[in-house]
């Protein structure tokens, strides 16, 4: 399953990353190299195999529905690149 230049651009956008026009070709080739390599997995018949999602087969624990932490607004905002009026600030999105 080789990918083309358009797919590279689409994946980049889905990833919210930019691939410069002059780098699309090289990126495509690199990805196809990796994807070709991954395709060796198709040598193995896995039709009857259950996927392994986690090696940890314990059932997730339930806990009391109580507040464990909170009232830390200042700490939450401390690392924000921009904050105003106790909120994260983003560029204007509505005209």
């Amino acid at each position: 399953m080789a990918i083309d230049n358009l797919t590279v651009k689409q994946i980049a956008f889905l990833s919210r990353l930019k691939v410069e026009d002059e780098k699309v070709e090289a990126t495509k080739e690199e990805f196809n190299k990796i994807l070709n390599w991954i395709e060796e997995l198709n040598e193995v018949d896995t039709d009857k195999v259950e996927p392994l999602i986690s090696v940890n087969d314990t059932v997730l624990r339930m806990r009391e529905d109580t507040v464990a932490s909170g009232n830390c607004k200042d700490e939450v905002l401390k690392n924000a690149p921009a904050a105003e009026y106790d909120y994260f600030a983003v560029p204007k999105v509505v005209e």
Partner: protein
Amino acid sequence: MTDITELTVSEALNALKKHEFTSTELTEAYLRRMEDNRQYNAYITESADTAMEQAKEADKRYAAGTNRALEGIPLGIKDLFCTKNIRTTAASHILDNFIPPYESTVTQNLLNDGAVFLGKLNLDEFAMGGSNETSYFGPVINPWSKDKPLVPGGSSGGSAAAVAAHLCAAATGTDTGGSIREPAAFCGITGIKPTYGRCSRYGIVAFASSLDQAGPIAQDVRDCAILLKSMAGFDDKDSTSCEVPVPDYESFMNGDVAGLTIGMPKEYRPEGLNPEVAAYWDKAAEYLKARGAKIKEISLPHTKYALATYYVLAPAEASSNLARYDGIRYGFRAPGQQHLDDLYINTRTQGFGAEVRRRIMIGTYVLSAGYYDAYFLKAQKMRRLIHDDFMNAFKECDVILTPTSPITAFPIGDESMLQNPINMYLNDVFTVSVNLAGLPAFSLPIGLSAEGLPYGMQLIGKPFDEGTLFNVAAKLEADAKFERK
């Protein structure tokens, strides 16, 4: 008396208990040594002030007789663990101004036992790499380098180099596909990736959550036992953390290997395996045989597919985990854009390095509509087969012995690795299966190559059977008589 920075953790603890020197003296000695050895680029951030405060507190406790398990021992912390009020970067531009308001559970456990933190250690960006060359803060130099600078391995390259060069008594690492074991092997020291779920992942910058696990990197087997006991334990802040008792790992070192069966997987000896690696592997088996262990050839039939499986699953999980870096809530934000999508795109494109961008895009692709079943689901099924290979193998052996890496440390900027990322990925061939199966695995130095560079041996155990690994590792260590830096 020898330089106090060259003592192991257990030796330093004994000396501190006997008041031969203070933690303040020990910490000052490390800080001086760090300052004199910045050429290794092992630390991203040095935290001298908090280290000195912690050392003073430790000295008070020694005086009062209330000293704890790691009281006053100066450690280096991989810069992937969030440390409260100490910058935590994951070696990425996108986090280079991030100061966590909270502490990771593993580092909190170490602090609760009295450890002193010297600073934050360099790594591959977001732990993605096997050579420490993807760090935004530049490569780390392996202390074993001779005429040209060699990589320390990765991703915990700063941790391994710092321990080998005595820039900390021991260090924390994390291991997603070999990131503790490979650098430990390249730098001639010791490290263990515990069973998945043994150490809490809370507060560790996530790479691939179903594979990531924290562990110690230290000078010898005993130090790993002491560190792991502190680091491990159930944590309700990590839903994958396991509620199992943490044993005294040191006590296992007095065990006997007679009667144990050591498995050697035939698939780990492919045609063309470096003859030096093969020879050391056989020698390690002979050491254990001479002590009464039974050596048995075993088979892990799907070994060949582990790397490709890993390089689907790890990037897929990474693409999801790294979606959080959006330039809004913390970390770097690219300046000067108008539209929100531009802000995301510019922030992430400028904030992430090339290897991280590559893995995010590969991960995004294998999870995308139309390709999910062909790649991601397929890899999850392969993961089951690889996992079951180990479980079947453990029906006929107690521990599996393999080399840690097919090669020794290579030069920084190696052309073949840079030109084709797959060549770099292939170095993980002996380590990734262990993460896919969630098993504990040790790496310890076994000997030097003809060029004088260290090789590591890997011991793989059953889930939560780190104890047997400490038993076997202690014997191999005693027989190999490897001379550390």
